[in-house]
């Protein structure tokens, strides 16, 4: 099932690498559509292609074949130069290891995407950064360097940074993989709230016990989507 205008539409996407042992397919003939406001999980074993799929959606990786349309833009045809600002405006990325820039304070880290994409007036950027940090509950740490924060706090700040340019899509590659279970639960709740707030959130995760909370769970195996575990809403394969 799908709505006529999906936010993300992937058609016949393959990604292969030439190795000395032969051609390796990270993705094979993948088709999927994701509409806005959904909380989507991509699961699978290591090497199954889930990170590659996430990277293709974010314009970080290019498919060898197929078509990728995200928020109306066919990104597989865009150059690196075009992709950077597009990504800044459309995709918020959250990494497993947070990847906050170590010499910028938390607030400055959140302001950086606005600076790069020249979104929001310079005078309001800090105010917006503080609002986002407030939303993820680390506003008190705004003027500290990342090294002064716990892992959970850093990941919250990273989520705030991902939201800086107000992108419609948030993607996260194992965002709780480096956190204890209690903190992971809190971070996960944040993603649920964001999804409820209208953001499309796509997570790569190993934690199958969280599956119930997702609108859709894709399980990947050998570069293919093998199963739609809980196709509750308008997501199609």
């Amino acid at each position, binding site marked *: 099932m799908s709505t006529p205008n999906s936010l993300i539409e992937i058609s016949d996407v393959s990604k292969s690498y030439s190795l000395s042992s032969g051609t390796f397919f990270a993705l094979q003939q993948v088709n999927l559509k994701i509409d806005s406001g959904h909380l989507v999980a991509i699961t699978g074993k290591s090497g199954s292609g889930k990170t590659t799929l996430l990277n293709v959606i974010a314009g970080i990786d290019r498919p060898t074949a197929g078509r990728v349309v995200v928020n109306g833009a066919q990104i597989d045809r865009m150059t690196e130069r075009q992709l950077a600002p597009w990504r800044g405006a459309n995709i918020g990325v959250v990494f497993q290891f947070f990847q906050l820039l170590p*010499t910028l304070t938390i607030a400055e880290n959140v302001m950086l995407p606005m600076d*790069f994409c020249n979104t929001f007036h310079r005078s309001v950027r800090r105010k917006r950064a503080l609002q986002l940090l407030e939303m993820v509950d680390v506003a008190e740490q705004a003027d500290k360097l990342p090294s002064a924060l716990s892992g959970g706090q850093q990941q919250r700040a990273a989520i705030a*940074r991902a939201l800086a340019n107000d992108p419609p899509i948030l993607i996260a590659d194992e965002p709780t993989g480096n956190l204890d279970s209690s903190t992971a639960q809190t971070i996960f709740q944040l993603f649920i709230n964001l999804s409820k707030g209208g953001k499309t959130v796509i997570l790569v995760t190993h934690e199958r016990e969280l599956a119930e909370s997702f609108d859709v769970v894709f399980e990947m195996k050998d570069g293919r989507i093998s199963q739609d575990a809980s196709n509750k809403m308008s997501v199609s394969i």
Partner: protein
Amino acid sequence: MSTRVLKVIRDLKLEYGRSAMLITAIFIGATAIGIILGAYAVLKREMRNNYMGTVPASATLEVDDSISTDILNAARKFDGVLLADRRATITARMKVDGRWFHLLLFVADDFSDLHTNKFTPVSGKVIPGRGEMLVEQTAFGVMHAAEGDSLLVKLEDREIKIKLSGTVHDPSLAPAWQEQAGYGYISMSTLKLLNPEARFNQLRIVVTERSDSREHITKISRALSDHLAGMSVGVHEIQVPSPGRHPHESQLTTVMTIFVVFSLLILVLASILVSTVMETVMIKEIRQIGVMKTIGGRTGQIFVIYLLSIAILSGAGCMLAIPTARLGAAAFYNMLAGLLNITVHDNSIPFWTTMALIFAGTMIPLVAAAIPVLRGSRVSVKKAISNFGSSQRISNITLAITKYIELLFGSQLFRIAVRNVLRQQRRLTMTVLLLAIAGAVFMTALNVSAAWDKNLSRLYVQKKFDFDVRFDSSVDTVMIGRELKQVNGIHTYEFWSMLSASAEIKDKLSITRTYPDKGHGSFNIAGLPPNTELLNPTVRLGQWLNDQHPEGIVLNQLAAAQIEDAKPGKDIELMAEGVVTRWKIIGITEDVGTPATAYVLLDALMKQRESSVNTLRVAYKDRSYENAVANNESIEKLLQSLSVPVAFALPVWVLRNAVAAHMKILVDTLLTLSLLMAVVGTLTLISSMSISILERTREFGILRTIGATPSRVIRLVVYEVGCVSILSLAVAFPLSLGLSTYLSYLVGALSFGTPLSLTVSYPGILEWTALLIVVGLTASIAPSIRANSITIREAIAFE
């Protein structure tokens, strides 16, 4: 402030050690450029102003008879002549510490109304009275006297004491210590005490227009000469030195050009260091670059972030360099001004030199850093965020090399070290290149210095005589020879004929390039006995004088340069003191420390120009300085006792000192620049090793977890430094040979027209190698110990 700029500033603060090192490197390079350009600009301006301030004569007309006031007035009124003075220049001798030395006496008509070749009173009397002399300020040191003292002066057989009544500054003359001669200014009445027959025989003129054209000056001088001939005054020589050019201007230009090149090289080296460091920074920050690109950063924005950091460091280096360079330039130009005998009236360093410093100090590092920064900025997001550190791909060649090394040395640790060195090939290339250039320039500076010393020592090889005595009039050579045989320690002696000459003859008039000091720009013809034992010429082309070619002439390189298309087989005419002589060139030599000279057989010269021998050249059995001094004195006394009129007597060691003094600036500054090069090279090795060790902290942790002791880790790093150092030496040495060959040629050719032969300074190689060892060990052991001092857990977690 934008968050991007904040990142740049915070990163620089975080890595303050690295930032300080880069600022230091840029500071050194920019300062060197600032000093050299600042000093050059001031000296070039002041040299010209000083020289032109003396109102140098456009030409000097040497006349056969006396120049009367009527003739002087006629010259002053002559069309095309702006100013005219009558003068005389006498080569006399002065007694200093019991020995006779060269003394140039400049005789002026009216000291209160000089029109040309002026000088500035410094202290004491402005107009010398009868029996008094004004002394050029640099000559007191040579005279070992002070203002108010008296000096015994001798001309032919007359000796009188002359009071040194005043001090003057004459910037048209090279410093007296450089020429190893005294300079005095006397009136005609004083000269007549030495020679009652003395007269003004030089007419110095300044032309009204086109004073920078030698051709025009020659034309006016010849016209004036014709006019004087109508007044029964014969002119036998017209001296037209290079218009508006101080005699040492080309020396200054040569030396400063070399310095500019060297200082630019220092900055280029510093910039390559910046580039190497940025290469590492971009690898280290690759994940941050990936993150920035993921959150919207474009390649251009990221490029600007990292380039901005270099701009800030370069700016800081330049800001520090500006005041230091100005102070350094002031010290340098004051030192050089002393060596050039000029006074710096205007201390202002032109603004363009500061602009050039800023431009070079920022643009060269920025251009050098732009390449690694651009490469790093262009990395794709995927590659950046999935980066696992440096490339672990090892080529088959690397594997083969390491395998061979293991077989050769049987050390696995050494094999690992070699593989480590080869795995970061771009950085290895940069580091080796940087060290090699620094080493090559360091060794080149010492090689050129050694080549200069070797060239100087050739002076003794070519000139087999130790004492050069010039007579004023004809002498009884048989009698002098007989008496010389009684003097102990004399190996041999010869009588020569030395005449001033000119290769440019216009209507039987000799046109020379001689300056008023009679030394710079002069051209001599030397008549030698066949098979002379006192000259061992370096024949570059053709052959030396021989009986088969009685009309043959051999030119030295400076003489050949004054004759168009000079080569063996060409027929030439030379004016030898008023007489046109004709010769066929049979050879060209390369002389050290000899002005432009043409060698001919004495008999052939006597045949063409009736003249007697006027020169005695004596060689001693023991050529040591002490013995030469003692023998010179014996010969002087002998000639005095025989009443032989000696014009001047020049020991060869004085000549050697004079030649050495001319290039003192170059040699001293080359050595200073080599030290700066050593500093930059040291910084290179330290930075390269520190960065390499720091980024491998995790690797060392892993090595320790699998059983490597800290000492083995340190040995590994020391082996690596050894490999890099050996590689750099292998590149530096041949590079230094090429650079030394070129620079030696340039220095020699532009200074005295004698290209210096390639000379390898073995102390230079040893010093550079020792520096590499000491700095290499320091740069590797200290950070290795630090890396080993953290726990394995911390080391493995290090990112």
